[in-house]
């Protein structure tokens, strides 16, 4: 008799299509019936995974159609099975998987749309945070600004693409029966996604603003973030950018790196 461990590993291999050990020997009843009974589980295992992937990636699903999505979901699950008891995480590697499938063809944009959808899900599920305390910021003397470290809202995610991925996403998650065609060369995306209460907001960024926020994300202080913004974009205006992101609720706290 196999140990409990052996039984579970063999059954999991069979359910995920990762091998064909003589698993039917473990199951009571004639072999063909055992195979079919195992198939009932395999269908559920694949269906649950696909449904979770569909709810994370509705625009990709719509763009590629149900048949292709089912087939791709199955392949993806075979190579990247769920690693958690919570299916919300199972789609994390899907954008990279799509990028490998379509490295350089007419569907290269799909991976970017998927990346955007993953970041949207992350933003939707992240913690709330109170807005920045403007009064305490007003008390910081101008000379101390350079040493401040600004903290971004937990729901903030930065997204960049050489495709108009946000426009593609917007028309494909709406209720329009026939989404309009979008020219893949109609512009690139630099976007800050942030959620206020239950509302997602998309802020288009200049190159300077994007580098500026990335520097905050890495935990760099204000002066270093200003330098990053300026290097990316000669016209970058740091104080206007900071005001914009505070007003948008994207910057929620600060700490001083200099002891006063």
């Amino acid at each position, binding site marked *: *008799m*196999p*140990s*409990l*461990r052996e*039984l*579970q*590993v063999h*059954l*999991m291999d069979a*359910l*995920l299509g*990762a091998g064909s050990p003589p698993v039917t*020997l*473990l*199951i*009571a*009843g004639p072999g*063909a*019936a*055992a195979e*079919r*009974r*195992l198939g*009932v*589980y395999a269908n*559920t*295992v694949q269906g*649950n*995974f696909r449904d*979770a992937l569909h709810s994370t990636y509705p625009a990709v699903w719509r763009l590629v159609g149900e048949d292709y999505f089912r087939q791709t979901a199955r392949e993806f699950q075979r190579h990247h*099975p*769920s*690693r*958690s*008891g*919570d*299916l*919300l995480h*199972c789609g994390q590697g899907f954008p990279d998987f799509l990028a490998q499938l379509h490295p350089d063809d007419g569907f290269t944009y799909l991976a970017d749309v998927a990346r955007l959808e993953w970041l949207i899900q992350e933003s*939707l*599920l*992240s*913690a*709330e945070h109170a807005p920045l305390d403007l009064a305490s910021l007003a008390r910081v003397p101008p000379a101390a600004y350079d040493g401040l470290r600004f903290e971004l809202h*937990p*729901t903030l995610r930065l997204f960049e693409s050489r495709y108009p991925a946000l426009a593609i996403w917007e028309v494909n998650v709406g209720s329009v029966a026939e989404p309009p065609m979008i020219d893949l060369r109609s512009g690139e995306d630099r976007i800050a996604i942030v*959620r206020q209460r*239950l509302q997602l907001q998309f802020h288009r960024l200049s190159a300077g603003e994007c580098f500026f926020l990335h520097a905050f994300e890495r935990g760099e202080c204000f002066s270093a973030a200003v330098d990053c913004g300026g290097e990316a974009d000669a016209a970058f205006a740091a104080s206007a950018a900071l005001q914009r992101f505070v007003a948008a609720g994207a910057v929620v706290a600060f700490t001083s790196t200099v002891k006063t």
Partner: protein
Amino acid sequence: MPANAGIGLRAQHHLHVLSESPDVSWFEAHSENYFAEGGSHVECLSRIRSRYPLSLHGVGLSLGSTDPLNREHLANLRRVIARFEPALVSEHLSWCSAGGRFANDLLPLPYTEEALRHVGSRIAQVQDALGRQILLENVSSYLQFSASTMPEWEFVAGVAAESGCGILLDLNNVYVAAHNHEFDSREYLEGIPRRIVQEFHLAGFSRIDLDGQELLVDTHGTPVCDAVWDLYRAALRRFGNVPALIEWDTDLPNFDVLQAEARKADSLRSALHAVAA
């Protein structure tokens, strides 16, 4: 938990429940659906919890797995329990992971002494980590393992005795397994000790044809069938005034259909209770 029947809360119900405050005794929510740090699901459940008693029901802890207990999952569970303060916390007598890979389905165990000891000690670990007793639910199953050496009810009772957990007896699952594996569902009820059952589940199933053999599948997409209502009466007689929960997951009907199922459970329970009194 109130003795009247509760309803399984699904995300599609959130707005209806919040806007209409329907007459429901209590709700049961899937723990994993509220693991997120924030967002609309978490916010809705917080508001629903402020109006109704709640039970949290887990589907992904993989209690029966031989992988190490997933500490992150357990920490998330602890966090949602602290956040929503449920009256009951339950998990399934099943496994869903091996070698770090998850099937995200409720897979049955072989009913052996080895598996009994293993699951018993895992449940004890979880109860220690959570600082409370959990209820364990029997699952539907579509296959049996050659290795099994005891009937399912003996395994369920043994695991409860080994770990000190309570039992969430899913009567639809008993009926489905009894049909699929040709045993007597009344014998199952007789095999479960009286005092340990703290909740019933009631749901509907589907029938599929497996080359001429009819298999029942626990799809939670239809009303509770007459035979399961009969089993519910028998369970009420044996286990007493235990609260029931109506579960519906696929092809969700209007909310009033679920309320009607809950009222039916209540009327059967009060009729029997009146007779007993």
